[in-house]
């Protein structure tokens, strides 16, 4: 399988504080890959480096074979990478519908995703269409953020800590919904502290530690081998 996205020895720093020390990973088309690891190991920074929000100081980010490291984020979005950040903030002053509409106009990518299809995937949003997004609950905001990103018709979805701060019931529903996206053939890179959440969805997993890849392999291996999981993640 040729990789849709490939990171080659990516180093990233915020000013003087270095966070990533040579991350290499691959994501094939249609795969769901998860990044695991404790807080502060560089999961979010890896995603920000892919998205161009924090420029890698060294290394290559290959999207369909083209090096996109150093591109502006809006170009990367238009190239087909969608990012759902961990703070999951929506555009609070706009209505739910306006949030989706803005994204569609912004990315200028034609594709299967329309407002109607987002409502189909997240029926709760349809009833809230005219509501100001700032007044939605945490779970609703998360759905809207994912929906907004889907409106850009991405080929790869970067999901950063989607379950963080959500009630268990809401997390279960979210899991189903993200699972459905995966079944529809969307490629997903998932960063999660919630190991259960990730391993139920992912095909493969990378375990990060101190800005490097400590382990990589099939998700099933981590799922089934409690000892390995314990050693890598100390949970």
């Amino acid at each position: 399988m040729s990789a849709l996205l490939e990171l080659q020895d990516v180093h990233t720093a915020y000013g003087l504080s270095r966070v990533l020390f040579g991350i290499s990973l691959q994501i094939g088309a249609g795969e769901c890959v998860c990044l695991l690891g404790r807080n502060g190991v560089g999961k979010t920074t890896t995603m920000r480096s892919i998205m161009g929000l924090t420029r890698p100081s060294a290394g290559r980010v290959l999207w369909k074979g083209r090096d996109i490291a150093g591109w502006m984020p809006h170009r990367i979005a238009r190239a087909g990478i969608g990012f759902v950040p961990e703070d999951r903030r929506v555009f609070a002053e706009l209505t739910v519908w306006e949030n989706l509409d803005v994204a569609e106009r912004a990315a200028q990518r034609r594709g299967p995703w329309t407002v109607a299809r987002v409502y189909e995937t997240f029926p709760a949003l349809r009833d809230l269409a005219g509501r100001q997004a700032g007044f939605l609950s945490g779970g609703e905001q998360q759905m809207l953020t994912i929906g907004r990103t889907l409106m850009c018709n991405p080929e790869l979805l970067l999901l950063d800590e989607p379950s963080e701060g959500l009630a268990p019931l809401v997390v279960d529903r979210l899991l189903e919904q993200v699972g459905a996206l995966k079944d529809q053939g969307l490629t997903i890179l998932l960063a999660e502290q919630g190991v259960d959440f990730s391993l139920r969805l992912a095909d493969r997993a990378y375990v990060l530690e101190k800005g490097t890849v400590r382990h990589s392999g099939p998700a099933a291996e981590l799922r089934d081998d409690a000892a390995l999981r314990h050693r890598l993640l100390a949970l």
Partner: protein
Amino acid sequence: MSRRIPWVLVVALVAMWVPWLGSRFYTFLATDIAILALFALSLNLLLGYTGLVSFGHAAYFGIGAYTSAILMKTHGVPFALSFPAAGVVAALFALVFGFFCVRLTKIYFAMLTLAFAQIVWAICFKWNDVTGGEQGLPNVPYPELGWMAAIPGLGQMRAGDHFYLLVLALVAVAVAALRRIVASPYGRMLTVIRENPERAEFIGINVRLYQLSAFTAAGFFAGLAGALFGIFNRGVFPDFAYWTKSAEVLIMTILGGMGHFWGPAVGAMVLTLLNQQITSYTEYWPLILGTILIVLLFGFRGGIVGALAGLGRRLRRR
């Protein structure tokens, strides 16, 4: 609600009766307010809608004023041409300066807008052959408004009243255009950028391009206001582009409330009226203005309109 009522038309229809009050002074004040309201509303396209703090908005006001004055006085160009030309020239300068400004963020952006404005001011101040230098360009001619006397009901009026009605009509059209801009999908993009430029960027918005276009549009409308002000003032002077003018329009916008479309216009009105009233009692106007600002910044962040809207909401809830 505000979408169904054409507020621009309502305000213009009310304001057009000012000359019938019969006082030359009221007409003078109303003209001043209408022009400054447009100036402040143009700044709010940046401040309130795009989230860009410009400390140099007077540059485009000044450029508009000089463009129209030079065309009308030096070259005898009629107002019908010099007025739009003022907007276009101001917009071109805003495009060039803005190209550099949007590369910076926050305080650096603000300082660069100020730097460009000071350059504009220095050129106006020193380029004697074209701008009249320190003396400015006095006696900018009035537009030819004789035709207005032929309209029934306007025949008895003074030239100042005719000019006021022209200003009011032009400002109303410009404000209606601004209203259309901020309510359009384009305006929503600006709102998104103000809320969070980074988030806007990763959903695919070319943030700098949008900021530059807003900067240029704001320059255009400021230029139009400047052109009117030069005629109203019977002359253009370097201090039109000076930083104190930029500060004044910022204060109007914040005083009125940058979170509401009409806020800056209300701010322009209140500041102008207060200035008139208070300077007739005391020479310490800046002292009073400073006090008002402090109260506002601590007590009423949303400005006058923000405070009124909050009060209205509370009353309705009861």
